[in-house]
């Protein structure tokens, strides 16, 4: 799950009136500030998801200027801990006690409904959940969270229970408002007068739960998510431009075993992913370069864009596409996207393709017709053939040397018309089509394409919508003279 480092979690808490220790954030890209912050202070690396920072040297207590400069320099640089977003320099506070508090989500089960859980302990520090005998667990409804008073009544004997209850209530509010999975404050320091103050904190969240207006709070300062690789960021942008269905793509961070077949995958649906994992998880001779899920009724335009991203991965030997076998998603549309990606990519891969479900016969028929004209070998499989059998075809089909081709040039200039969502540019060449192109009009499942007899050109029907299925371009290439081409722009990382 994506994690928020301390300095960004503090903003969520402060927004709900939770007191946090004074601190200043210095982003990684800006270098060591001149002059550096004045000691004494704590210098804390801000790495999403990092835990036990103190024991890993990611939190330094500095008491002089030299140590401050050194700590800033080291913790602002990439290290074995990964890329830091920056450092948070906090003032030391004289503490007379430490508490622990967190909110988590209990997913529920057969015996209980899902709910939030407030955890509190009058002890702080690492491992408190395991070691504390005084951990308070307070389940609560997300629709009717506990009042400050209700929290206070559950607290153990404390010197200032009202102030602690107010702080905990703020934590619960932030947890619900931002729909977080985890929100932890550890430790909460206690000042001499009993005032509690969050000293350190972290959060885990779901990207899907971040409201539009809150995105800035959840985005690193340099823009974009540093945890994502460039091609992964490209897919995120594809998703933003065309939100239809699921478009998931993550690259394998591990080193491929020597001599293993490196397989770029398009695994449609979570079940497809599981099927592939069950087939290859125990094998050292197959290295899965990426996980990708294209399913849930996405457009063929989007399938194409994600496929082009998958094909852009350096070092792949073969492409394997399979769902879990039977898709409600139109397999003919998907096949059109695969065909377009393989013929337009400068780095196509030999491909093993499994189509099953709606219009599967048309999908296979398409590849029966076009496979021989592609620059790479393609084998396509019916749903009855499972990945267990498909992997055996990898050695005869895969190619270890990189394949580079010059794909046919794409149309340039002003398109005949454009679609916004899913985004596409349509080019119609009337000189290649002397009669009414019934094959194009008939191929469009929604009636979006219309014929303007006066100007003898194609025009969009304002009463209908383009679903980005690629059937018109496919018909143009297979039944016409290539008089209609669709250009689907790609994020720059893909090229």
């Amino acid at each position: 799950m994506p994690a928020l480092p301390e300095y960004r979690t503090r903003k969520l808490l402060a927004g709900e009136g939770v007191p946090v220790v004074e601190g200043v954030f210095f982003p990684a890209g800006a270098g060591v500030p001149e002059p550096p912050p004045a000691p004494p202070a704590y210098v804390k690396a801000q790495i999403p998801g990092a835990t036990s920072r103190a024991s890993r040297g990611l939190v330094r207590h500095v008491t002089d200027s030299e140590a401050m400069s050194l700590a800033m320099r080291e913790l602002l640089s990439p290290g074995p801990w990964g890329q830091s977003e920056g450092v948070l320099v906090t003032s030391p506070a004289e503490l007379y006690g430490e508490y622990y508090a967190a909110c988590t989500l209990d997913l529920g089960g057969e015996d209980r409904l899902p709910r939030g859980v407030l955890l509190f302990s009058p002890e702080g520090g690492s491992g408190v959940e395991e070691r504390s005998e005084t951990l308070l667990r307070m389940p609560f409804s997300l629709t009717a969270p506990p009042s400050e008073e209700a929290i206070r009544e559950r607290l153990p004997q404390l010197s200032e229970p009202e102030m602690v209850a107010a702080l905990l209530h703020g934590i619960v509010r932030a947890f619900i408002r931002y729909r977080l999975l985890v929100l932890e404050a550890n430790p909460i320091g206690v000042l001499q007068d009993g005032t509690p103050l969050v000293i350190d904190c972290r959060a885990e969240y779901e990207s899907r739960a971040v409201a539009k207006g809150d995105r800035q709070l959840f985005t690193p300062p340099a823009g974009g998510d540093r945890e994502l690789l460039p091609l992964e960021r490209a897919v995120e942008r594809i998703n933003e431009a065309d939100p239809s269905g699921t478009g998931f793509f993550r690259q394998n961070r591990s080193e491929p075993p020597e001599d293993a077949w490196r397989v770029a995958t398009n695994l449609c649906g979570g079940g497809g992913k599981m099927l592939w994992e069950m087939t290859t998880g125990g094998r050292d001779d197959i290295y899965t370069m990426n996980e990708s899920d294209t399913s849930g009724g996405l457009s063929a335009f989007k399938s194409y864009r994600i496929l082009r991203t998958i094909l852009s991965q350096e070092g792949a030997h073969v492409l394997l596409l399979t769902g879990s076998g039977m898709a409600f998603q139109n397999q003919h549309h998907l096949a059109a996207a695969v065909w377009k990606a393989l013929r337009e990519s400068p780095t196509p891969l030999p491909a093993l393709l499994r189509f099953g479900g709606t219009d599967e016969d048309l999908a296979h028929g398409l590849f029966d017709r076009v496979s021989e004209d592609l620059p790479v070998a393609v084998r396509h499989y019916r749903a009855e053939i499972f990945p267990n059998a498909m992997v055996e075809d990898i050695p005869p089909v895969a190619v270890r040397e990189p394949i580079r081709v010059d794909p046919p040039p794409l149309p340039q200039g002003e398109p005949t018309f454009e679609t916004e969502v899913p985004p596409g540019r349509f080019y119609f060449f009337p000189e290649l089509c002397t009669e009414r192109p019934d094959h194009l009009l008939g191929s469009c499942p929604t009636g979006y394409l219309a014929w303007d007899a006066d100007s003898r050109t194609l025009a969009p029907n304002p009463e209908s919508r383009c679903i980005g299925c690629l059937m018109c371009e496919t018909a143009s290439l297979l039944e016409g003279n290539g008089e209609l081409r669709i250009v689907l722009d790609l994020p720059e990382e893909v090229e």
Partner: protein
Amino acid sequence: MGGILEHLADIEEPRVLVFGITGRQGRSRTRLMRRFGTDIVAGCTPGKGGQEVNGTPVYDSASEAVEAHPDLNTAVFYVPAKAVRSAASDAMEAGLGFLVLTADGVPTHDAAVLKELSSRKGCRFLGPNTVGLLDTSGYLFGLIGGRASWARSNYLPGSVGVISRSGGLSQLLGAFHCRRHLPGPREDGSFGPLWGEEYPGVSAVVCVGGDPIPGVSVLDAARAFEADPRTKVMAVYGETGTSQENDLARAMESGEISKPVVVFLGGKYTEAGVAQSHAGAMIRNPEEAYGAKRKALEEAGAVVVERPDAVFASTARILGLRA
């Protein structure tokens, strides 16, 4: 009509309100459902009340739709993930008894809230992130089947109840049970046709969805199939994450589920704490890992297989079918 919905939500004649009927997916899926035989009564899109979509009246809210059509009892949602919480709450408040939430990407907090609300209202929801439900007695909800003609020819009445946490696998486990002379790996290790002209067929296919908080769980679906007289055996696709398979195993152990259960369990190589494309497959504690689930299911008497095509030989044996 009855079917599985009678046992899932005490609904004998499903009469459906379609949320998002004026959108692209809502229109096309409504066509699919109706052609398959589902009784689509009305649609709902806030701000578009008064319109009609292919003869179906559209209302601004569920309560308006229910007022005009008091026999409505089921709702299917084709709305964006972020709109699911308010739309489903609207339907629950209006008193609808069964909801199908197809959207992927519903925040987990929202699913938790809906679960709580549905418990209060005495209603059931399927999903989120589900392809839906198909009953061979003549109705389907959601996306399952893709095209009505395909769905009609690929899902044929019979005695297997399919439960799945994956959309694709729910369709595969359903459709392959309806193919004559299906080839596949046999329990003795050989490969060939698993049955002849007489195929097992399916009573219903229930995709519970791939999210961490399902409305209808694997066990809820199993209870419905246990009560369904058509169903003789259950074919289940389970995976890591959540306690659903563990709950099923406990119910089998206790005798609450007594019909035979064949499980294709995914996630043998899934590591704990790693995000999955099915959000619900992430392992959050050791009980949710493959090994623990497999052990629990096998000890409870389920047949657990490691590849989906191995399911069919086991269901064939249980049903006494031979090639």
